């Protein structure tokens, strides 16, 4: 088995530890298909580079979120990244849906029906995952792969109380 390919496949499956090859070998191979190897507090993961993001837009369309889903993303990010609105690793979380709902209400936004709609949209865009059984939300690969501009928008638009 090709160790580098195996390591990349393991990272795709959410395995945050690198298998046998060196990080350099994995990074070099990942770059061939427009991805980069990144390491954060939750371990290593693959993120799309600018080339890869351009490709993702073919399917998902440019991510332009309205206020409510943008607010949901901001709350989830601030929770999992400890108040920093920065690119998170895929799978980061979980954040409980009722916690997001409370935060939305605290900011004067609908934490009920609109939250369900926003979560469905964010899930469809591949930005968050929503486990209906446990009612937990996690960061999906699509959010981790977004360009820095999205996080800049979040930083600027993140509302304060009310």
């Amino acid at each position: 088995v090709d160790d580098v390919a195996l390591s990349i496949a393991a990272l795709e499956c959410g395995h945050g530890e690198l298998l046998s090859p060196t990080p350099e070998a994995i990074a070099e191979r990942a770059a061939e298909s427009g991805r980069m190897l990144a390491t954060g507090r939750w371990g290593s993961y693959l993120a799309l580079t600018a080339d890869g993001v351009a490709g993702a837009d073919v399917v998902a369309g440019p991510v332009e979120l309205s206020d409510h889903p943008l607010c949901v993303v901001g709350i989830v990010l601030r929770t999992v990244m400890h108040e920093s609105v920065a690119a998170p690793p895929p799978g980061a979380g979980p954040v409980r849906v009722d916690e997001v709902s409370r935060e939305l209400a605290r900011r004067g936004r609908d934490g009920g029906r609109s939250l369900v709609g926003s979560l469905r949209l964010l899930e469809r865009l591949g930005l968050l995952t929503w486990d209906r059984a446990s009612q937990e939300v996690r960061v999906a690969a699509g959010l981790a792969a977004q360009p820095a501009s999205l996080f800049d928008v979040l930083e600027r638009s993140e509302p304060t109380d009310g």
Partner: protein
Amino acid sequence: MADGLTGLPVRDRVDVLEAIAALRVSGEPVAAAGVRALADPRLRELVEATLVREGRILLGVQGNVYAIGYADEIAAALAVRGIGILEPVDRAVLCLALLHTVAIPRARSRGRAGDTWHEGERVPIAQVIGQYHGRGLTKETVEHAIARLKHLGLLRMGHDVSPGPVLLRLTPRRRAELWEDLVLICAPTSSRARHIREQRGTEAA
């Protein structure tokens, strides 16, 4: 950059990367019609070669529609390490769901013939849950497992239970092994089951 992509005109290289990203992020198979590097045989070869270097393979689903899966040896190596595998309860519920939505209808000559798993009948969740009565699993446990399987795309979203699009990502060998596993479970003393066990024993030796 990969040897295969080095020296390519910029447009071709971007198209190959776009095709790979599209295959990776799409929950459903990707039609070649909208993706130049899948429609063009020369570029499609480069897509395949790049995917192979990441342990993936390009699967032609039907006509000019494509999906990606893990190469058999990579999938096996991941499973041995316990990476990317389902929890036992989810595996059991998936098995039962596929039995009711694909295997039984096909055995009764309903639906598409062949060895694929992604197309099947819709059955009520109660039909799957009912199979577990008295076997140590609660209704809630099975419902939660079904929700997880739907989230993973192994079952389709909706009120009923039906096979999901991720099953399109199985290689021909994996599809065949799933059918064989069902034979081993449902008819363990049959001659077919004996043959499968012998064949697997030989391959493992």
